[in-house]
């Protein structure tokens, strides 16, 4: 998820930006996609870079050009290891940006790819990633039209970093935003959660766990397109729940829409191995990153149709209706159990850390 503030026409005299970010240094948590990330963006980045302070922070910015609307987004990828079951940094970089555009209701038109390479990186590794980028772009049907390459000293980067920027065309009539969401709307999730985050955690080897898991990195565009074509204005909001997981994406929705979201715990699709790893490590699958899923909030009367549309699309077989929007408790995400209780699902605080207690 790249967080870009929607643009606003600049007033003649800019008011002094209200800096609310008080942390004395940048920590890993500021990049983990949870509460700390949001605070950094809202408290420091957005005020200084001109975005209105309270503007909804979305996956892509929407700009009007000659009467048409374009979605713009950029995303940087730093992942260790560079290759992991189911994908690599190259796949992530393309799919991540294509997905940010897709959930903004846009069809990707062109990509820019920027590489930061660490001196000493084997050419074969770079070549593999360039092939992965090309293949992912081909599959997503979007051309790479330019970019940049920089090299930094050995030890100053973790092999390679990739930044992609994308531009997409938004169909007329598409209006996706938190303010379009109404109580009673249903929450649709495209498939099982946590595959990517747990795959990476295992691939790092720190916890010494093995499982037959693969990252879910893929373009969600075919599913999103099927949904939009079938339901159109019945879709009110979409988001790809990457870092911070489903919990953080829905908490952002709840905060932006000033509404509550209730998830039905039994309806959440989670693969056995993801669940097993989460139970072992004391993690919540709702906090784990995904790279090939999306959440959609749809009008209740179109919900079944929406589910059918996504399930019929390639890769959407595992889609589920997982929750609904409520007026109360506002700004809160709850997970309701099958036995009549409900817990609060908070945003991710910091990085998801395995625990023993």
């Amino acid at each position: 998820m790249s967080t870009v503030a929607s643009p606003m026409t600049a007033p003649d005299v800019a008011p002094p930006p209200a800096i609310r970010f008080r942390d004395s240094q940048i920590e890993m948590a500021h990049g983990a996609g949870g509460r700390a990330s949001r605070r950094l963006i809202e408290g420091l980045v957005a005020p200084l870079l001109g975005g209105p302070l309270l503007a909804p922070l979305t996956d892509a910015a929407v700009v009007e050009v000659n009467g048409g609307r374009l979605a713009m987004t950029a995303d940087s990828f730093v992942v260790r290891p560079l290759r992991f079951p189911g994908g690599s940094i190259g796949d992530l970089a393309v799919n991540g940006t294509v997905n940010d555009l897709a959930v903004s209701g846009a069809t990707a038109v062109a990509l820019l790819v920027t590489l930061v390479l660490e001196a000493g990186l084997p050419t074969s590794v770079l070549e593999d990633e360039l092939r992965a980028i090309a293949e992912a772009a081909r599959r997503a049907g979007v051309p790479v039209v330019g970019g940049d390459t920089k090299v930094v000293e050995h030890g100053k980067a973790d092999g390679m970093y990739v930044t992609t920027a994308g531009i997409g065309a938004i169909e007329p009539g598409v209006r996706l935003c938190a303010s379009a969401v109404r109580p009673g709307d249903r929450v649709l999730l495209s498939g099982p959660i946590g595959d990517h985050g747990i795959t990476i955690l295992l691939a790092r080897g720190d916890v010494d766990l093995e499982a037959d898991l693969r990252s879910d990195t893929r373009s969600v565009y075919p599913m999103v397109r099927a949904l939009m074509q079938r339901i159109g204005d019945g879709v009110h909001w979409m988001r790809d729940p990457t870092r911070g997981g489903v919990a953080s994406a829905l908490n952002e929705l709840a905060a932006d829409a000033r509404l509550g979201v209730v998830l039905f715990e039994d309806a959440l699709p989670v693969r056995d191995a993801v669940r097993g790893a989460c139970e072992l490590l004391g993690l919540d699958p709702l906090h784990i990153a995904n790279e090939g899923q999306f959440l959609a909030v749809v009008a209740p009367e179109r919900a079944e149709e929406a589910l059918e549309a996504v399930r019929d699309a390639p890769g959407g077989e595992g889609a589920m209706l997982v929750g609904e929007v409520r007026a109360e408790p506002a700004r809160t995400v709850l997970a309701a159990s099958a036995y009549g209780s409900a817990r609060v699902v908070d945003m991710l605080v910091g990085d998801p850390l395995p625990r023993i207690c």
Partner: protein
Amino acid sequence: MCLAIPGKIVEFVVGQPHLAVIEVSGVRRRVNIDLLRDEPPALAIGDWVLIHVGFAMSRIGVAEAEEQMRLLAMLGEDRLAMEELEGYRFTEPPARAEEIA
């Protein structure tokens, strides 16, 4: 105060008698079994143990688990609850062992 989870022994590590591979819902890890291997009966493939910080802490008793389920079902002597109980069998025929995890 301690996160511990049941896992099934799927392999003993050759040449390292203090280690076994356990599986939790399709996730495998080597764990230390020193705390259980001196006490009879000997650990066997398919046994369930409780795992904490990479150590097998305790064997999980099938008979005790079944007794607990029976007591729970009896709390209301609800017909539905008794049916739920019928659905749980902790002893598994070896042939089905793989799919149960």
